[in-house]
């Protein structure tokens, strides 16, 4: 286990800290990358568990790297709160250094609202979350927050893209004992911490973009409530007086400039 970890770290060019590996350890016994079936099974079990939940709320504390024009890497932060009541209610609040989005879905209408800019856009939505996802992605270019966590273990998951999967060990995230896994695929290394015990939920995720020289990372720590109490009006958007409705841009191929 230990040697697997070291091999991964070396391959990834990561610095684990002084003394974390000796010369002897630095020689991997084998350079072959392996997909640990236990790690894949853990992903699938997590996905199945998440899909079973009829009602939940999760708060993700997120960090994302970006690059300054100089090439220096800087980190931005934020939170994502996702509240779901199957089959037809969803609310998401995304707040951060560079984001401010609020999503409402009540089985009839889907609305996205930027509180700071004061603009919102809506469309008449399909009656279930399962159908909604397809519409938001294909027609409107909106990915639903955290949605992909829920697809492991279905035919839509990304298992076939995984070129290496390693069980790293046990780790504690916010007081919860978790199994720590590391995965590799084209352009991306990622790590996932899944809670041990009766609730196999993801508690932490770190994604490293390996195709970029600076290896930017995106990370999040997740806090789950699997027995939330939702007020009735949580999922329905009531526009504040100063908010203005705007349209969705579903066109493609327009040029974009930036003032940033």
């Amino acid at each position, binding site marked *: 286990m230990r040697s697997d970890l070291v091999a991964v770290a070396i391959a990834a060019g990561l610095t684990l800290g002084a003394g974390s590996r000796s010369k002897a350890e630095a020689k991997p016994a084998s350079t072959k990358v392996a997909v640990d079936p236990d790690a894949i099974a853990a992903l699938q079990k997590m996905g199945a568990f998440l899909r079973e939940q009829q009602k939940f709320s999760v708060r993700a504390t997120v960090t994302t790297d970006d690059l300054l024009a100089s090439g220096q890497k800087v980190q931005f932060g934020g939170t994502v709160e996702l509240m779901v009541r199957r089959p037809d209610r969803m609310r998401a609040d995304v707040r951060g250094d560079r984001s401010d989005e609020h999503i409402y879905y009540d089985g009839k209408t889907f609305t996205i609202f930027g509180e700071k800019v004061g603009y919102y856009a809506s469309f008449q939505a399909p009656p279930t979350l399962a159908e909604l996802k397809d519409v938001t992605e294909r027609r409107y270019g909106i990915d639903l*927050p955290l949605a992909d966590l829920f697809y492991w273990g279905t035919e839509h998951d990304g298992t076939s893209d995984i070129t290496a999967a390693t069980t790293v060990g046990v780790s504690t995230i916010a007081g919860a004992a978790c199994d720590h896994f590391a995965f590799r695929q084209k352009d991306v290394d990622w790590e996932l911490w899944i809670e041990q015990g009766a609730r196999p939920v993801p508690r932490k995720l770190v994604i490293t973009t390996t195709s970029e020289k600076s290896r930017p990372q995106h990370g999040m720590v997740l806090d789950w409530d699997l027995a939330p109490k939702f007020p009735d009006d949580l999922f329905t958007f009531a526009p504040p007086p100063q908010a203005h409705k705007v349209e969705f841009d579903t066109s493609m191929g327009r040029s974009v400039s930036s003032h940033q």
Partner: protein
Amino acid sequence: MRRIIMDRIGSRGLVLAAFLAAAGLAPSAANAVVVVRRSVNYHPVARRAVVTGAAVATAVAVGTVVRSIPPSCTSVVVGNVAYQQCGSTWYQPRYAGSAVTYVVVNPPR
């Protein structure tokens, strides 16, 4: 002026990334990451080449889309449609994916 690194990455589509993207925590978010299957077409703005800089200093062609507008712009509603007026240039805000973008339009008045 930031370089939006993830735009390129994003076009390859990543799975887990999606949730980032979804999260919208970065223009890139979607991209930053990961895993998989998302293909290209989900982030119309992100997919496009980002032209930085100067464009706006002078007249901007109608139809040009930008991610952000100068802080000096004024929010104006004409005929129940929201605009941002920046000197002689008028923008109409819209949602492209989960981000507000601004398209240059002919002055509504």
